[in-house]
């Protein structure tokens, strides 16, 4: 039987280093591997022996795109170990800085990494030649997100101001209000962006996923809630280890995460949205409906619209938080370390991020466990490709390869987080294979 391969040695427009390999036998998909060859960096190992106050500075360095997520999961896990709850305005400020990160990360992905696929451009700079207003608007959204993060965090990449117990320094009401005009303008532009995103062409592709996300009784989830799914999961975060397991496979430097007895699941904007539509602001709900989204989104290609809706929601929520803000009496609560284990899940831009720490009585880390969203989605990405390729098998090699890349980018994989590197290969018949070899050779020529 004819065997052929689709492959991409180094997947572009994702954060980190990865590849894809697909082998076809006749018209049947025989193998799909999302390969992660980002070199491992061993964070869980060198966190051992560090002081609890250093943890957020260290975990931020796992990912330059979503450092706030790594800080938030770490903070809440350590605070849960110490029996500390952060309420009121300190809690609100943490929500606010997270809004900034969602915006910056989503806008980067929507406009610079994913939209070019829908319109057939290699990158956003080429796309900007024909669609300057769309790309410029996207950059303005991203800048507004970065502005929120820099204001509260000191800088947008690896912010310095969050700490266990609260913040090092909290803003005055006047200073915070200075953000308001920027965010109001950005919210209007976010509405425009959602409308524009709804005009893109989406492949017909719906799957019956098990969505997993946090759910909170009052809010769209950022830092708090129970872990729920559309297929019956409903647990406190502290039971994560009883329900989810990580597997180490040979083709990936990131661990694959599965739900015990059920297998692959889906985390990220589409899961959050589908499980929490009722908690979005009225404006975000209206624009989502207007964009043609239902209350559940099972087409992963439409996750680009969902990200747009979340950007809009994040601005809406940021405005609400700024308007209700009154400076807290103190920037942080006193922290009493104790020997204990703490857990937290927060919603990173790419989905649920689990941290667990065991600490000694002096607040030193004894062991750490971190489960990033991209490693949780790896298996679902592979499953999508198993289903996506067969109906498109007659497409020319280049086009099919590009479509597969786009399908991977639906998940905004952050391989820096999961560990880092994506290679894509699609195997075809012997004749096509000669062509593929040539492509591969040209790929390596400049190395």
């Amino acid at each position, binding site marked *: 039987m004819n065997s052929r391969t689709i492959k991409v040695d180094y997947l572009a427009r994702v954060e980190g280093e990865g590849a894809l390999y697909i082998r076809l036998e006749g018209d049947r998909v025989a193998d799909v591997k999302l390969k992660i060859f980002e070199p*491992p960096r061993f964070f869980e190992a*060198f966190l051992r022996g560090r002081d609890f106050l250093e943890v957020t500075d260290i975990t931020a360095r796992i990912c*330059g795109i979503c450092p706030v997520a790594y800080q938030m999961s770490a903070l809440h896990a350590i605070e849960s170990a110490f029996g500390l709850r952060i309420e009121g305005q300190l809690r609100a400020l943490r929500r606010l800085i997270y809004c900034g990160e969602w915006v910056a990360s989503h806008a980067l992905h929507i406009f610079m990494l994913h939209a070019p696929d829908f319109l057939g451009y290699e990158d956003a700079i080429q796309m900007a030649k024909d669609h300057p207003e769309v790309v410029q608007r996207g950059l303005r959204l991203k800048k507004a997100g970065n502005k929120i993060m820099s204001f509260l965090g000191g800088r947008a990449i690896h912010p310095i101001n969050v700490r266990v117990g609260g913040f090092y320094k909290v803003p005055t009401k006047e200073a915070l209000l200075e953000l308001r005009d920027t965010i109001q303008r950005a919210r209007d532009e976010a509405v425009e962006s959602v409308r524009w995103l709804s005009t893109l062409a989406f492949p017909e592709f719906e799957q019956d996923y098990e969505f997993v996300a946090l759910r909170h009784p009052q809010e769209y989830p950022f830092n708090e809630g129970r872990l729920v799914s559309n297929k019956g999961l409903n647990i406190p975060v502290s039971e994560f280890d009883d329900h989810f397991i990580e597997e180490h496979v040979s083709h990936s430097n990131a661990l694959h995460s599965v739900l015990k007895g059920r297998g692959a699941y889906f985390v990220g904007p589409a899961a959050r949205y589908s499980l929490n539509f009722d908690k979005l602001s009225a404006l975000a709900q209206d624009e989502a409906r207007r964009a043609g989204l239902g209350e559940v989104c099972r087409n992963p290609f439409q996750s680009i619209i969902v990200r747009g809706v979340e950007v809009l929601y994040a601005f809406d929520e940021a405005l609400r938080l700024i308007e209700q803000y009154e400076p807290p009496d103190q920037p942080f609560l006193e922290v009493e370390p104790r020997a204990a284990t703490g857990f937290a899940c927060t919603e990173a831009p790419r989905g649920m991020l689990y941290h667990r720490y065991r600490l000694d009585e002096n607040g030193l880390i004894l062991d750490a466990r971190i489960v990033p969203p991209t490693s949780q989605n790896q298996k679902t990405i592979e499953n999508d490709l198993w289903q996506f390729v067969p109906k498109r098998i007659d497409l020319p090699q280049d086009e099919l390869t590009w479509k597969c890349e786009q399908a991977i980018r639906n998940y905004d994989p952050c391989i820096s987080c999961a560990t*880092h590197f994506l290679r894509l290969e699609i195997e075809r018949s012997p004749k096509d294979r000669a062509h593929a070899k040539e492509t591969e050779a040209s790929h390596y020529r400049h190395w």
Partner: protein
Amino acid sequence: MRKRKPKLAVWKFASCDGCQLSLLDCEDELFAVAGELEIAYFMEASRAVVKGPYDLSLVEGSITTPHDAKRIRQVRRQSKYLVTIGACATAGGIQALRNFRDVKEFMRIVYATPAYISTLEKSTAISEHVKVDFELRGCPINKRQLLEVISAFLQKRKPNTPPHSVCVECKLRGIVCVMVAQGVPCLGPVTHAGCGAICPAYDRGCYGCFGPKETPNIYSLGRWMKSLGSEDEELERVFHNFNTYAEPFRDFRASELQRRETQENE
């Protein structure tokens, strides 16, 4: 006739992506940069790949695998001017904490099947493998300084990135010294400038993202921090962070501080 635009390449090794993100975070300047340079190889931003050689290569990340040790030499061969961006590329990054430990033990902690992992014993700076034309500090780099490096390259001059301490930046901003006024331990006196003294502006001490400044006196600062109540283990931890493998932070030991203090008292 207009001259050919210089070709820019952005390379990634073991890192968090934050330093190359700094280029995409130049929302107002990105298109100006793309107007002056041909973005020829930048996988995080584009599928399009233009063949080398490249006029300017920006290198993010440290060398941690045998494959990457080979790859950086290939990158060097194709690059006329090679700039490392950030603490990983310039000093080995936070992952260089493994350099003081047994990497096999580290692998066992993180991965169930360590045999699948290929890694070197040490995480090292790019300059330990190939000649580097300029090193930009920071974890992450400052995007203003990145634009300065690119502008300097285009104008064929040396980038202006002062090697003095964070203390100078604090004074320039008019920030009251957190160490003197609040008794907060601060790495500012030995840390390379570049961030703009962010931490002291937020009432916390500097924690050394930009690595050692020129001629730092780490043991003198260590003694001051000790007098403010820092314990020996704490002092070792603060020097062993994102720039742990940069001289002289690499050699800081509490035992050496004690030896020096005893010697002075004698």
